[in-house]
């Protein structure tokens, strides 16, 4: 009883939606990386205020559901005359939420580098910048890759939520197809195939990154 022609007929529509999903997700990941890096540094800072601010950021954006954040940015701010465009709300929402997770991933990875290494480097006369650039960051990056890829695949799937601000991403479009054709199974299977393909690519890139960063490691 399956009618694969439903997916075939809507293939261009689904492909465009998959492109939109990839676009908002990649932009969200990039924004999240920048935010995550800054927030992580703030949390590790010796300055009490900065460390608390970083901690507050993480608790807030991890603690409030992404759907609520998106609705807040798009509809609530408009009540105060701040009209955030849909695309900015979508990417901003994804990026700010992902930033909180990425900050914690990075912080965990930095903490996993034995503190004796930085102490030894200081004793050998390395400057603070050099210690970060040559000792802490390369190792932290290597340690964080599996968790980061995990976070990216989660974000890709969470990007289905941006339809609440009117972005025609993959899940939304598959629902549109299901409702206009009365063939939900075919439409959702089509969307699932796209998600799987994109996430397999992400995982492949993750493996590649892990292998490249493994150069010079003891294992």
């Amino acid at each position, binding site marked *: 009883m399956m009618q694969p022609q439903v997916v075939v007929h809507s293939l261009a529509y689904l492909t465009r939606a998959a492109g939109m999903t990839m676009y908002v997700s990649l932009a969200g990941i990039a924004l999240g990386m920048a935010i995550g890096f800054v927030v992580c540094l703030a949390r590790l800072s010796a300055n009490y205020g900065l460390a608390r601010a970083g901690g507050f950021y993480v608790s807030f954006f991890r603690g409030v559901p992404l759907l609520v954040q998106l609705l807040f940015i798009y509809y609530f701010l408009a009540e105060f*005359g701040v009209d955030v465009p849909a695309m900015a709300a979508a990417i901003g929402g994804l990026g700010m939420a992902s930033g909180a997770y990425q900050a914690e991933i990075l912080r965990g990875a930095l903490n996993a580098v034995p503190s004796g290494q930085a102490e030894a480097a200081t004793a050998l006369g390395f400057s603070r910048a050099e210690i970060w650039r040559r000792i802490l960051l390369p190792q932290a990056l290597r340690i964080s890759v599996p968790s980061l890829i995990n976070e990216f695949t989660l974000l890709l799937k969470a990007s289905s939520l941006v339809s*609440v601000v009117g972005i*025609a991403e993959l899940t939304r479009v598959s629902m*549109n197809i299901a409702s206009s054709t009365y063939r939900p199974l075919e439409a959702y299977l089509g969307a699932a195939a796209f998600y799987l393909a994109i996430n397999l690519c992400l995982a492949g890139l993750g493996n590649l990154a892990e292998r490249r960063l493994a150069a010079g490691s003891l294992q």
Partner: protein
Amino acid sequence: MMKFDAYSLTRRDMLRTGLIGAASAGAWLSGLGAALADDTLADVKKRGELVIATEMQFPPFDISDNGTYKGVDRDLIDEVVKELGVKVKYLDLPWTSILPGLEAKKFDICIAPVTITKERMQRYLFTVPIADATAALMKRANDASIAKPEDIAGKTVGGQKGTSQLAQLKAFAAKLPKPVEVKEYVDNNQSYADLAAGRIDASVNSFPNLAYAAAQRADTFAVVTPAFGTPTYFSWVGRLDDKALIDAVNAAILKTEEDGRMAKIQKTWFGQSFDLPKTVPEPQL
């Protein structure tokens, strides 16, 4: 002259200053919001574009066919903006985002069909009816046990949560000799899917929606006639303070009814044409 030493500010002072600053910024921003609220019709004419929102998952009213917006609402709004002399921009939003978006002024008017009810009239301004919204039932085409609406007694019926049609079903079921099990779904399409899969015995929705669904999958679905509900209508909705815009839209809709354009749209999507009330009817529900 007042002596002011910034370094003597305590933490509490700073917090207080911050709060006052935030509050005044908030007041300024909300003032700005109110200033923008003036007259939507004048705004629309000035920018030369009416921004509408609907959920493109409500055939035959709103359909997204391979990415192209189609349906009764699309055909009708295209005629309405011709009368207003402006262009139109369509937004596709989930139903749960549409009414908040209307209040947040993210668009000018909602053209998703909204059933006119007393409760909703307190909060939104309705246009004149654009279609019949009387509740009816749909069954599996091969199910001979349901021939008239009353035959759902003792069976399971599904419908979309929060809709007026589901409320009508519950009122109807209460009067039947045997209890009806009512299953609530996030949207009608899940109710149709469960009907096809045999998990429920009938789906409730407005008559035009069901007639279209049954025509699309005639091997699977059939409409149970007659419609059982109280006669109700679908309208579009605007913000309560946008009377000028809604009046202009009403005039345009009535014009399409007079010159036969409405009948043509109805024939295309419902297979027949019918008359609609010329004013917003007093809601029965």
